[in-house]
């Protein structure tokens, strides 16, 4: 049965030359698989390798290991470890979105434009893209007067809303999202959770990292707990 994503004993360690070749292990033989439309929650203390794993899947980190086969809509099953840069770029553009914890964008670009850009890139007409962005920011409770302001002056929560909005609005096929609900009030948390569930219903697969029990139970079909760079057995989270 073809999995959406199948990781076979993937490992990641860093070789820091500037500390005269210090060897830092981050992940040790990670194996798991995931099906289309599934949401996996990565949990574990900070430094346990959650972000590293996600970055290996997104190919920000060069991992080693047997294989990491992803069932791409463009290329069909493709090993993300071996794929060429050009292929990864195509996958990122058309299928995979990574939403990190911190918003880093070109300064002096208005919030609504940042969100709209992810639709424009997909070829959505300009006014349609802006309309949907404003609508989504409103749903996320970002005050209207901030829409045309520059995010660098916003609070953590407000920046997080833009970051999440930007990643979700384009309905990617495969969403990797790091702490989607951290530093959000309860009401906005529910809006984000609802939005992700909506995407799940239309077929999006998600790997998310969270420390928040409430978000985990609401969203994750399965939990993968990481300790010291290794997966430790954890029971399946309730649907």
């Amino acid at each position, binding site marked *: 049965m073809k999995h959406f994503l199948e990781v076979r004993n993937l490992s990641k360690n860093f070789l820091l030359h500037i500390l005269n070749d210090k060897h830092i292990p981050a992940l040790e033989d990670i194996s798991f698989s995931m099906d289309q439309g599934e949401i996996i929650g990565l949990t574990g203390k900070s430094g346990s390798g959650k972000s590293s794993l996600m970055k290996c899947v997104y190919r920000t980190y060069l991992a080693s290991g047997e294989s990491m086969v992803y069932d791409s809509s463009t290329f069909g099953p*493709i090993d993300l470890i071996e794929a060429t840069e*050009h292929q990864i770029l195509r996958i990122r553009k058309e299928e995979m979105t990574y939403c990190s914890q911190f918003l880093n*964008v070109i300064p*002096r670009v208005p919030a609504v434009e940042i969100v709209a850009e992810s639709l424009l*890139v997909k070829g959505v007409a300009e006014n349609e893209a802006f309309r949907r962005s404003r609508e989504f920011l409103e749903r996320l409770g970002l005050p209207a007067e901030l829409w045309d302001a520059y995010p660098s002056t916003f609070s953590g929560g407000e920046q997080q809303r833009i970051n999440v909005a930007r990643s979700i609005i384009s309905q990617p096929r495969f969403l990797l999202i790091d702490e989607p609900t951290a530093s959000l009030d309860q009401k906005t948390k529910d809006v984000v959770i609802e939005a992700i569930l909506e995407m799940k219903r239309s077929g999006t697969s998600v790997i998310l990292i969270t420390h928040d029990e409430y978000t985990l139970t609401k969203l994750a079909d399965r939990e993968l707990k990481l300790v010291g760079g290794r997966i430790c057995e954890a029971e399946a989270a309730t649907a």
Partner: protein
Amino acid sequence: MVQDNTDNWLLRVRGLTKIYGDPISNSIAYTGPKFGSNICPETDAIVACAEIDFDLYPGEVLGVVGESGSGKSTLVQLLYFDGEATGGEVYFRSFEDGDTNILRVTNQKKRYLRNHLMGMVYQNPRDGLNFKFSAGGNIAEKLLMANEFNVGRIRNRASSLLTQTEVPVERMDNAPATFSGGMQQRVQISKAIANNPPLIFLDEVTTGLDVSVQAKVLDLIRGLQQDLGISMIVVSHDLSVIRMLTDRTMVLKNGRIVESGLTDQILQDPQHAYTQLLVSSLL
């Protein structure tokens, strides 16, 4: 497994080399990152860059980063024929279907490439613009070389380009010398994309501009790249420019590529010692 389309590359560069002075056979062997120098010990020949290999795909933005003297500017100068390459082959899909080594074509063909299929934005506006002509005149030069001999259409195209790059159209007939630094770069950008080339080079474009203007120009370039879907090679010593603009990045040191990869990987998981050093100065 669908055959990955390695063959729809736009630009293919193999063994691109530039040596000043009179090299001997192993001048290249005795220079490079391993020796931390570009200068051949025996003949004082300077190996600006050597053995440069890479492919560029349509719509991709490739970053070239490195300190001064690393050969990053030489690289784009060779590709844009501002300098004569000592060796190497460059194939350009849009020119004779990528079968010809464009480094060895006639001057006339090189001028055709420079005008129709490529664009260049220089760090110093004086290299990119002719200060004897007006801003509109500079753009007109490109259109005229593309046999557009209708003044009305030239002015329409020039004003739409200037609007696209946020230059006030009423200043179209002013001399570039009366423009601010940021504005001169925008005029250069309009000139570079005047004939809708599939590929443009940006050599340290925002260096020297003050911070607020830099951000605006970068945002403009990013927007244009997405709208027009053109490929770009962005040369910069400034890693934040590379982070914001590029998909992939090559790191150059002493005229050689020491590492290349996806930009986020280069910045967050650098492999080569020199890249780690370079990146550590950013984080």
